[in-house]
């Protein structure tokens, strides 16, 4: 490979890294935001276990968002200004939500007992606000910030569907990490969240080609459509398997991890579909990744750091999940 083509490859590599960070963020913060949104349905004792189950992880989970936005900022500075300028208000609302959720983690156990309820409510409200804002942003982004009556409607649909997906993710996490009554309830929650999540996914899959001509062309041209059909088919199979699994008692036994893994598969597939729709644009129909990218020199410097640190990050993330693996125990006051 000569130097020119490597320089042209750099934006593609960083787009891939940014996508990977965002995917890891949506999956990992997805489950803990989901757990947050389920808080108001739980008893006080259950709330403590739910928070304990995500306590060691949420910091690192949120850091993937910083990395994703960081790569957007650093590798695609022109897109960063454009995207965040368009999403000014939902970004602010999401940040308020994430802030409230993040601080409630610590405040709820350290404040006076009389204030604990307030922080629990803020934990729920922050999780919900951040999830809805992210759904809206995703909807606006995927449709290339189009104007017209159908675009906000589309974004609103995703603003409902994404939180539902997070709730399902959170419930699956609890099925995996808890036992007894709470696990039982988590199965119920997952069953309730399944239908709206699937409905939202179908709706989005149908609406995306409708709002964007570029995507329509991508999806419905031969022979690509045959290869692409694998994505919705596998997605559908995973979701049906999940629904069937939630109806059996095995889900509370040895395969309690399976719903969570199936959902990860759904998220990864959805992400691949999205990536296929949008590439090579960083803002659909407006800005390609090469138009938005920083200079090759700057990207190379960053790439060196990335190659060293991303494996290290992966290493200690695995370590941390190993340390805290297994079921989250009951709260016992010493």
């Amino acid at each position: 490979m000569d130097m020119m083509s490597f320089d042209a490859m750099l934006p593609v590599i960083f787009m891939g890294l940014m996508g990977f960070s965002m995917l890891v963020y949506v999956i990992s913060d997805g489950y803990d935001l989901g757990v947050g949104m389920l808080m108001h349905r739980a008893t006080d004792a259950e709330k403590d276990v739910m928070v304990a189950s995500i306590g060691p992880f949420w910091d690192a989970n949120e850091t993937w968002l910083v990395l994703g936005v960081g790569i957007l900022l650093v590798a695609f500075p022109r897109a960063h200004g454009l995207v965040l300028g368009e999403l000014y208000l939902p970004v602010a609302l999401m940040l308020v939500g994430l802030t409230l959720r993040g601080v409630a983690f610590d405040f709820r156990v350290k404040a006076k007992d009389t204030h604990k309820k307030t922080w629990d409510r803020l934990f729920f409200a922050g999780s919900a606000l951040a999830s809805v804002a992210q759904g809206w942003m995703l909807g606006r982004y995927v449709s290339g910030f189009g104007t017209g009556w159908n675009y906000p409607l589309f974004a609103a649909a995703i603003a409902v569907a994404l939180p539902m997906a997070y709730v399902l993710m959170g419930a699956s996490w609890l099925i995996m990490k808890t036992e007894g009554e709470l696990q039982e309830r988590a199965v119920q929650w997952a069953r309730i969240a399944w239908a709206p999540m699937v409905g939202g996914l179908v709706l989005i899959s149908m609406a995306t080609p409708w709002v964007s001509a570029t995507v329509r062309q991508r999806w419905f041209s031969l022979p690509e459509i045959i290869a692409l059909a694998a994505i919705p088919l596998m997605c559908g199979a995973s979701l049906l398997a999940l629904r069937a699994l939630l109806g059996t008692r095995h889900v509370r036994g040895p395969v309690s991890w399976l719903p969570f893994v199936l959902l990860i598969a759904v998220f990864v597939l959805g992400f691949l579909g999205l990536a296929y729709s949008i590439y090579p644009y960083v803002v659909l129909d407006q800005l390609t990744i090469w138009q938005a990218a920083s200079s090759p020199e700057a990207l190379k410097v960053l790439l060196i750091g990335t190659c060293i640190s991303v494996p290290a990050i992966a290493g200690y993330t695995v370590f941390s999940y190993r340390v805290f693996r297994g079921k989250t125990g009951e709260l016992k006051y010493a």
Partner: protein
Amino acid sequence: MDALLLARMQFAANIPFHILFPTISIALGWLLLFFRVRWLRARHGTDRASAQGWLDAYRFWTKVFALTFALGVVSGITMSFQFGTNWPGFMEKVGNIAGPLLGYEVLTAFFLEAGFLGVMLFGHGKVSEKVHFMATFFVAFGTTLSAFWILALNSWMQTPAGYEIRDGVYHVRSWIEVIFNPSFPYRFTHMVLASGLTCAFLLTGLSAWQLLRGAALRSAPRVLRVGLTVGAVLIPVQIFVGDLHGLNTLQHQPAKIAAMEGIWKTERGAPLLLFAIPDAEQRLNHFAIEVPHVASLILTHELDGEIKGLDEFRDRHPPPLPVFFAFRVMVGMGMLMLATSWVGVWLYRRARWQPERLPRALLWLCAGMTFSGWVATVAGWYVTEIGRQPFVVHGLIRTADVVSTKPTAGMIGLTLTLYLVLYAVLIVAYVSVLKYMAEKPEDVLQVEAAEEAATPVGVATSPVLPAGSAAWT
């Protein structure tokens, strides 16, 4: 109000709010490591009370660290977005320089802290002492590394070096020159010392409050001693480094110095203004109280040294009023810290490190100084950041040229209000929770024991050694 002013106000609200928390966590990480070492050393000795005291100190202050860290993370995330929402032109122009510095901060530091924080906070008993100790070390190291990258970028914006401009876009010529730009060593040292001092007074203040309220842990007398000693040692060093930093600024950003000193016309033997109200309209000072020649003496080390006045930098100098007052607040706070820590150490030593023999007035003074580090740090950042105006990169790029044109003034005003309300609530909550923790420290440790019980089980099959194994003996 126009969008530029609102965007600046929003950033000026968010940055100081964010810096409050890293200022504590940078040094607190290392102090936790110190408590840990003291406990590990004491626990095999005969002095059980001493061992328990250091362990309690570690546990109590880990709680403070967790809370502080959480606030730092959430406000830091806000910042990473506001670069794009408020200053898109900044990254478009200097993205090739600022980008990798910010990127390395996230990649090397942010993840290190966040990844090991879980193990540090909840892993006690789940991993070996050695692994837990290493996790604590990585968290402390990560916060310091984070400060390194961010201050490299900020210093580059103050004293840019190692760059070249091609087609209006900034490119890197030498990374060494970019990172180790002229003001970086001073600013980094100044900030790390500021963090140490902020922590020292936080330790001192909350321990004094515990002792005053009569609910003190066994650790409180020890932590009080650590806090006072660290403060007493660091404050003279800080005054010395601050002076060097000032001389460096005089060399590279003379307009900032002129604003700090309230000097309008270039003069020899410039006086030190103890008080004045600089008036940017009439370009003179009202109600000035001066000490002749002292400003020249401090800045040039000569009684008749020349200092350039603001009039030399028409349209290229910062608004003097906020810079002038912020500087006096910072220096004044430093002097108070010097007095408190030196008198404190002297009296505490004379009381043979027994807090019950200390005058209560001293404990009240210490409690009153709990957040003095915050005041000094924020004032210092206002000096350096407002002092750089009207530029975002000193001498090269004006702030007005990089502001976002996308959101309307109304939209920025709305989100500004939202952030201000949120930050006010969070600061009140943070301070009152610290106060509550200092009043009921036993409760805090009990909750911690319960949290540890609630974290996942599965130690028996763990590949790492259980706590208290031979790893450390």
